[in-house]
């Protein structure tokens, strides 16, 4: 890999402080254009290490109810790529935090991978997560990402076998995203044993070459603390934050997000 990566640098920095990463997800245009930035400011002030910017897609088939509803609301209010670029540029004026775009293949393909990755790199995006992009279909996608030094964060699942894990790891830069559950994004009631086993196996396959983040169903500081203890290099919180945004009045939004993010971040400080 050539070029610098804010994501890689962030993990190195955290490692030196004996910390794990808190990765937070929020959606472009949710609850509206203005307050997306309020939420992000709250996340940054609360201590998030990496921010995933979800860009809404009309057919989010890997997402549960919470993110589905947020996507629909955001699109209904007119969320578009122009808004996304405005947002990224504003964040970049204020912060050097690593930014990852999470959306579905069609949004990226429709723009043309090469052209779009160049544009998002220029705006300040560091990586992409595309839940319906498999390594088999990723040739052009990877080429465009490498050309523009965009990290390609692939997802793996508890049922991904060892051989495939290794294949995926070879195409992954930034960090590897372990999907914690059999299911879509959203809040889960209890932590499953298979998730703990999957984390162990994924860490082993990653072999310290690439950090392993775990997400889907991690919604409380207790969940986060548990997975940090089990060896996750990063914990990823999404739906719980969207839910918090949903029920918080705009006047209290930044403060509420800061408080919740702080609680989450505290769990990632190992010593």
């Amino acid at each position, binding site marked *: 890999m050539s070029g610098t990566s804010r994501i890689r640098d962030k993990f190195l920095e955290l490692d030196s402080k004996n910390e794990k990463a808190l990765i937070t997800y929020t959606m472009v245009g949710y609850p509206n254009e203005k307050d997306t930035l309020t939420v992000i400011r709250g996340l940054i002030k609360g201590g998030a290490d990496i921010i995933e910017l979800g860009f809404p*897609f*009309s*057919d*989010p*088939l*890997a997402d*549960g109810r919470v993110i*589905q509803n947020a996507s*629909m609301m955001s*699109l209904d209010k007119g969320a*578009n*790529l122009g808004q996304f670029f405005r947002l990224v540029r504003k964040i970049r004026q204020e912060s050097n935090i690593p930014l990852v775009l999470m959306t*579905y*293949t*069609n*949004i990226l*393909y*429709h*723009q043309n991978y090469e052209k779009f990755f160049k544009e998002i790199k220029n705006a300040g995006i560091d990586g992409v997560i595309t*839940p*319906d*992009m*498999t390594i*088999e*279909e990723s040739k052009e996608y990877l080429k465009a990402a490498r050309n523009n030094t965009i990290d390609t964060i*692939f*997802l*793996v*699942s*508890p*049922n*991904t*076998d060892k051989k*495939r894990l290794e294949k*995926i790891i070879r195409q992954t830069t930034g960090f590897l995203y372990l*999907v914690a559950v*059999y*299911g*879509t994004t959203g809040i889960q009631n209890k932590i499953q044993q298979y998730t703990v086993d999957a984390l162990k196996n994924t860490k082993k396959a990653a072999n310290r070459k690439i950090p392993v983040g775990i997400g889907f169903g991690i919604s409380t500081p207790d969940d986060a603390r548990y997975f940090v203890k089990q060896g996750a290099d990063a914990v990823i919180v999404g739906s719980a934050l969207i839910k918090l945004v949903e029920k918080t009045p705009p006047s209290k939004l930044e403060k509420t997000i800061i408080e919740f993010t702080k609680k989450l971040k505290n769990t990632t400080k190992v010593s």
Partner: protein
Amino acid sequence: MKPRFPKDGRFGEFGGKYIPETLVPAIEELEENYLKFKNDKSFKKELNYYLTEYAGRPTPLYFAKNLTEKIGGAKIYLKREDLLHGGAHKINNTLGQALLAKRMKKKRIIAETGAGQHGVATAMACACLGLTSEVYMGYKDTIRQKLNVYRMNLLGSKVHPVKSGSQTLKDAINEAIRDWITNVKDTYYLLGSAVGPHPYPVMVRDFQSVIGTEIIQQMKKINKKNPDIVIACVGGGSNAIGTFYPLIDSDTEIIGVEAAGKGLKTEYHSATLSAGSKGVLHGMMTYLLQDKEGQIKETHSISAGLDYPGVGPEHAFLKDANRVKYRSATDKEVIDAFLLLTRTEGIIPALESSHAIAEAIKIARSKPKSESIVVTLSGRGDKDVEVVEEYVRNIKNSR
């Protein structure tokens, strides 16, 4: 020309598997088992038994004499898939996949449905073979096709109305995929059209190819040659690909008919191949109806079964290869065709199939009497009489 079982799952640049990683092992397991059983003697024998004794194959190839005379041109033949058990071609595929699911030892079957025909055919196959089934159906479709909801319930299937998105077929597919991700170990996803990630488009095509194979045999008996033209309607495109595929290497002119709704120049149609652009939805690269940023558009058709913003990837391939002509019929043309066939032949066609009839009516006149046109009558129209009645009443009132 003819990608039989594309190893990388692609028809030219179309198809593939764009799916969440959780589904990859399930899709691989499916492909492996399908390849294993599709040529397995006892599997083929069992499927053939059910297709014949349970579903009612072979279906007649009926010479529509009255319709032909009324139009005055080429001879029109109807491939009577509407006479199958359940009233549509869907049972060809659901029996095939349900038998496969059984061999794969999957006990829980999920499916999506648009008009409800695939849901009913799934519920029937599952009841017959001792499997439990759950069907996702767009909330809007549960209302416009409530009779089919009731039929599924009677057959022991649980219907989940889907209230997300546009509340139609595409959203039902999203929800079925989400269910599959969640219950991936013990659940078999019985997809109803030649869409989705590989191997579905290939597998559904193969199970539906019995339509085209029978047409060839039957026309040989009648005419000692292949039909000059075949026509089928295209939503996802399963009855069409089943009709076309065995004829791809022949000289037969092949025409697929999409739903032009209120017109291709309006926002209210489902004519993906005629008016769409390339993109990725439901695990496949294909033509889609989408806006300038790649958001999938809501579609319209008077027939719920064609109300889908994507199309099977093999159709996308056949369009670009110029092997199949894809045309469209408007709601009005479809109603006219529905009424004409009903009155001349005493056959009530499904609104989906009426799109193909409309095209036959358009072209038959200009063709010589010596030529033969085969139209796949993919389903019967009992489910649609209310919609037709309302449409006709509104036209009368607006006059």
